């Protein structure tokens, strides 16, 4: 290439059918403002000091190595196709075989891809010359003449258009845009209902029995008294054929509770304080025979606070480690939660089943800005 510099050879500029793509006309060349720069915009082949051709034997070895890689890649590709058909869709239902299939497909694919990558790299590093080409960065900014010419032209044309001169037209156009701009935002209104009381009301009501979560078995106080861990996760006892669990995920997310059996004498002071807005009621009035019910949904950002340490009566949310004291009205003893887990008032009905005696008095779930307002 270097010994055949066609830069100044105008043969290529002949009639159209002979035109060689990529050969610019000499008169079209942009004349740089700094012609003294030796690395000026340069056409034609790269100059000798910019290309360092590899020795012939290196090139020949490179060609061989690259070919070996490409052959390996070919075999990998074939292997991928074979692996696809070796396992049929029924076999991969077994997780173990699915894993073998995954490894066979992935392994052969890796070989195919790596082979092509490695071959191309050898090609670039051993067969091709090593280039160290110089090229100028564009001059920034434009020259003063160019800029002022642009500015003059722009302002003239803007004036001609009348946009600056005719305020009535301009302002009415902007005015016309405003409602159109609002339209897409207004259209979003029906993406969901307004909150209303939806965060505050759950399926719990006076007389509602409770199912052990995941079953249709109603709970009695004895279930907890005999439970060695003293903690059961429960949902409102409703049988709705529409939902396998009786209630929808939305209702589960709000109404799931933790029932905890507290040994006699372990209650702390917040349980006996009078609850605001009731006449003389305390949190203990909301318990039954040492059993207390709290919302299971953490008041931080809504993970289920599912871990209970029996000896310290602490409820721990495994997501962000908010810790609530079950013996002390679920008071936050550690972590980021803003407020205690809401307590559900409970009792027993005539048949001896555990029931709620009302809904939560505070919305369960993540704390939101208007949670305390009715």
């Amino acid at each position, binding site marked *: *290439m270097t010994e055949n510099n066609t830069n100044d050879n105008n043969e290529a500029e002949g009639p159209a059918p002979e035109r060689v*793509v*990529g050969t610019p006309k000499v008169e079209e060349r942009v004349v740089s403002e700094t012609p003294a*720069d030796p690395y000026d915009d340069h056409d034609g*082949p*790269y100059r000798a000091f910019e290309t360092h051709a590899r020795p012939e034997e290196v090139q020949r070895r490179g060609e061989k190595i690259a070919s070996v890689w490409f052959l390996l890649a070919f075999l990998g590709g074939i292997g991928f196709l074979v692996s696809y058909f070796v*396992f*049929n*869709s029924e076999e*991969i*239902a077994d997780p173990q075989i*699915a894993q073998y*299939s*995954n*490894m066979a*497909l*992935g*392994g052969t*694919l890796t070989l195919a*891809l*790596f082979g*092509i*990558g490695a071959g*191309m*790299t050898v*090609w*670039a590093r051993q067969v*091709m010359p090593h*280039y*160290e*080409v*110089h*090229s*100028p*960065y564009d001059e*920034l900014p434009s020259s003063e003449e160019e800029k002022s010419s642009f500015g003059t032209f722009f302002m003239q044309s803007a004036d001609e258009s009348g946009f600056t001169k005719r305020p009535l037209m301009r302002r009415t156009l902007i005015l016309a845009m405003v409602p159109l701009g609002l339209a897409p935002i207004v259209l979003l209104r029906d993406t*969901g*209902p*307004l*909150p209303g009381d939806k965060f505050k009301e759950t399926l719990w009501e006076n007389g509602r029995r409770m199912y052990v*979560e995941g079953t249709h078995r109603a709970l009695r106080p004895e279930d907890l008294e005999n439970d060695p861990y003293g903690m059961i996760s429960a949902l409102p006892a409703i049988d709705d054929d529409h939902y396998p669990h009786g209630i929808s*995920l939305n209702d*589960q*997310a709000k109404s*799931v509770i933790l029932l905890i059996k507290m040994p006699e004498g372990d209650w702390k002071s917040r349980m006996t304080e009078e609850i605001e807005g009731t006449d003389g009621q305390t949190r203990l009035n909301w318990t039954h025979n040492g059993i207390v019910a709290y919302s299971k949904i953490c008041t*931080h*950002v*809504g*993970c*289920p606070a599912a871990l209970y340490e029996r000896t310290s009566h602490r409820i721990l949310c*495994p*997501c962000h480690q908010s810790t609530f004291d079950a013996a002390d009205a679920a008071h936050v003893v550690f*972590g*980021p939660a803003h*407020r205690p887990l809401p307590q559900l008032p409970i009792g027993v009905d005539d048949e001896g089943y555990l029931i709620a005696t009302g809904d939560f008095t505070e919305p369960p779930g993540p*704390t*939101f*800005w208007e949670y*305390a*307002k009715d």
Partner: protein
Amino acid sequence: MSKNTKAPKALRGVGNYIDDRFHLAKAGEKNLRKVFPNHWSFMLGEIALYSFIILLISGVFLTLWFKPSMAEVIYDGSYERLQGVPMSEAYASTLFIDFEVRGGFLVRQIHHWAALIFVAALVVHMLRVFFTGAFRKPREINWLIGVAIFAIAVVEGLFGYSLPDDLPSGMGVRVLQGVMLAIPLVGSYISMFLFGGEFPGEDIIPRLYMLHILALPALLLGLIVAHFMILWHQKHTQYPGTGRTEKTVVGTPMFPAFAVKAGGFFFFTFAVIALLSAFVQINPIHLFGPFTPTSITSGLQPDWYLGFMEGALRIFPNWFDFSIGGYPIIIGVLIPGLGIMGLLFGALAAWPFLEQWITGDKRVHNVADRPRNAPVRTGLGVAGIVFYGVLWMAGSNDILSETFSISLYTTTYILRTLLIVGPILGFIIAKRICLGLQRRDKETLEHGYESGIIQQLPSGEFIEVHKASSEETEHVLKSKPPVTSTALTEPEVDDKGVENPEARKGRGRFRRALAHWYTKDNVSLDGVRAHNGHHAHDSAEAEKEEVAH
């Protein structure tokens, strides 16, 4: 090497056909000649680009089978252990991809691994650009586009993680909703509108799906194209070296060498992702089970790039929560859930302009800084990394606590302390290391490098012979720009004795203080001449020669 520079007839035919319609010969040649400087760190952005391409390809495959529906179905597919379990169609169709589509598991793994590597490559690429000052004029706008790509990529990843509707992914959506609810005045409305009602509702997965496969990728693609057009137009930065100047870029031309190298690198990137996907299981959703809002497992981890937000949510206490008229301002959720994100992306976006304001440097920079030559910037970058790193560690504080048998609460207190102390220490140490390296550079420039040869002088003194550095080294060392600021060089009082009104105002004084902090301690190369000043060695060389004679 062929001496025939005429293109074959068929190629000429195609070329002329295109050129007759688009007049592309000149522009085409210019672009084929485009020069890419060589350095390993310039490949980081390439990894991000290639991972993105792999994401697009693998993502299209997944859409062929995935059903973005939250309708509840009883699973009767071929994965035995979950048969009869109620779950969303989204989860059931993901199981279908895993256990009934051959290669489906692999494509899902490739998609997930490519996402992790995409964001990781973005982050490391941004760190390279930050530490070498490649964001400086004229590339500030491309830096901002990069920050936007990073931010959207994180959200895009979170939404993708949420789609299979397995237990951890559903919990991620729950945390998102919990954070949203904490926003004063509008939180409960935003949540209702986004979820189409209460959590989890039946709308969130179809909506996230649309955002994940259409809106956000389109936005990302647009920004990535803009990023590349700007890069193409402005050309790459380069590291200092012989022949590399602010006006001239040196490197490999697009055609043929860079095209082949980059093509090979694409296949390498894809190969690594395929290898990980084949042998490192990352998303065994069949083991987690379907999402229910009432169940949880401990040790839950989000994808790595959300670890810092998860960590912030874990270690930020509720001490600063307060209420106004019965309406709580839940600082304990707002700061870690939204504030930290805002701080991260805001600080990244603001830094180029802040630095320019401090230094008053309005020049065009095409030669990248060596990180040691901008010690305050490097120190701040390291402080940022430490801050991010501590939050990221905090995202697994339960696992740390268990692994090292430290109580969970103690772990949290340690991490809270580290979050404040760590970045300060990181800044100080990084800055000191930079200054130490600057001194060593100065020494090397003056005296050459230590050759490892010990000589005894006739006087009995032992010396180590220094040898002259190579021309390249000398060039690199001399490239160190003086760290100055116009705030410090502008005279406070002009020649008529009038105080500079800018400098007198509070803002001006603040800028001077910042400029002083930014520029102080730097090692000046003023008056340093290469290989000059180690006379003892020179004389030793001379004496040695004499002895030889």
